[in-house]
């Protein structure tokens, strides 16, 4: 059944909207704070003494469902000590165009060497630039994205993430 009165009411509703403030968040100027447990661009970590946490065990690569991690290990030698363990990752690459940001790599890692950060502005003009090398992943975090206050959320922050 057509309901003409409701239709006319509808015109009133749409007309009223014109005078309200749009709820649009204008992105490049305004960045919405991400959740504390947001899964963004990866980071590799070091110990305080400068040694890398990653021992090149390739468990992250094995856990990766998208198969985007490539690890080539090498032996630590007394005059070239890179990581705390027996071996270190000579090559550690993540293909960000394949990564699905599931976080399995950080769960698989026995040394909490890899975590997912908060960065989501990782677009590039070329696909080759999407392959992140070890140096890029080890570099101090780029803080371009605001993070919401953890106290606002009742989900606990996992230990490995907080103390990474």
């Amino acid at each position, binding site marked *: 059944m057509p309901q003409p009165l409701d239709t006319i009411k509808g015109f009133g509703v*749409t007309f009223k*909207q014109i005078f*309200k403030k*749009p709820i*649009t968040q*204008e992105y490049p100027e305004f960045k919405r704070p991400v959740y504390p447990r947001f899964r963004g661009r990866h980071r590799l970590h070091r110990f305080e003494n400068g040694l890398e946490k990653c021992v090149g065990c390739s468990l992250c690569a094995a856990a990766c469902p998208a198969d985007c991690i490539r690890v080539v290990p090498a032996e630590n030698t007394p005059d070239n000590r890179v990581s705390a363990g027996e071996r270190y990752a000579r090559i550690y690459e993540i293909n960000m165009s394949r990564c699905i940001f599931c976080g399995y790599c950080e769960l698989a890692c026995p040394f909490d060497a890899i975590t997912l950060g908060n960065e989501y502005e990782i677009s590039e003009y070329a696909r080759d630039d999407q392959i992140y090398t070890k140096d890029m992943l080890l570099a101090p975090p780029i803080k371009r994205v605001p993070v919401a206050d953890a106290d606002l959320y009742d989900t606990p922050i996992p230990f490995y993430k907080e103390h990474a």
Partner: protein
Amino acid sequence: MSEPWWISLIKAFVIVNLVMVAFAYTTLLERKLLGRMQLRYGPNRAGPFGSLQPIADLIKLIRKESFFPSSAIELPYIVAPAISVFTAIAAFSVIPFGAGWHLYHWHINGEIANVSIALIVVFALGSLGIYGFIVGGWASESKYSLLGSMRTCAQLVSYEVSLALSVLGVVLMAGSLSLVDIVHKQGTFVPYAGPQVVGLLCFFIAGIAETNRAPFDLPEADSELVAGYHTEYSGMRWGLFQTAEYINMITLSALMVTLFFAGWHGPYAPLGPLWFFLKLLVVVSIFIWLKATLPRLRYDQLMRFGWKVLLPVATINAVVTAALVVAL
């Protein structure tokens, strides 16, 4: 009263360009207004308040590859968008937008061509414009395009009947088919929106269907279907179809202003074009308002409404008006 041919030529050139600019900024107005009605901003990046957005869109469309389907038939495929744009713009030539002015010893009319059967010219051009849609859809050699163009034609042909019948009341009251005469009659009498309110409503509803606008935008139905008759078009050829649609809407709004709202008449006569423009702006905004408010009809509802409701109402309106005109 007649003017030298070169004044007409200059006027035609100016009006064509004005209509194109009006089209460009109607798209912006639509996007802005729709945005605000949906609590968005609409385009606001290109230029202040997005004022350069139409130009950016134009540059993008022109630079884009005009894809050509290998099985398409070349000549009609290329000519179709041009036909629809040509008819859309040509219809504007008979619409009066001012009282006419004296400049030195020349007289400038308030319209490009004062045709004694202007209304019929507009409808004839509108019917010709449908050929652009049929030919374009057919020449693309695609099922979607063909079905889309059939859908479009069925709708346009159905609603054209009501559209023509709904203005019959105005024609009977004015006793003329010339838009200039109709506007003059309204200047001395009242705008026909008063005595012809039923005709106005019929004209408006049929006009929405005729220009493929929501809630009768079945030919495209962006959110439900593959585009329609312009499925296989891209780049500026697609842009020309869009141009034709929007200019048709502007022309129809202008026709509505002329027939029912006394055209360029307003409190201060030399400002004629301004009054015309303001009335046009209001009518176009109402078209956009409708798009933001009403949900799309189903195809059987569209056909039923066109033939079983709109056509009888428009016919009765015409008959009653004829009886009253004869009796009074």
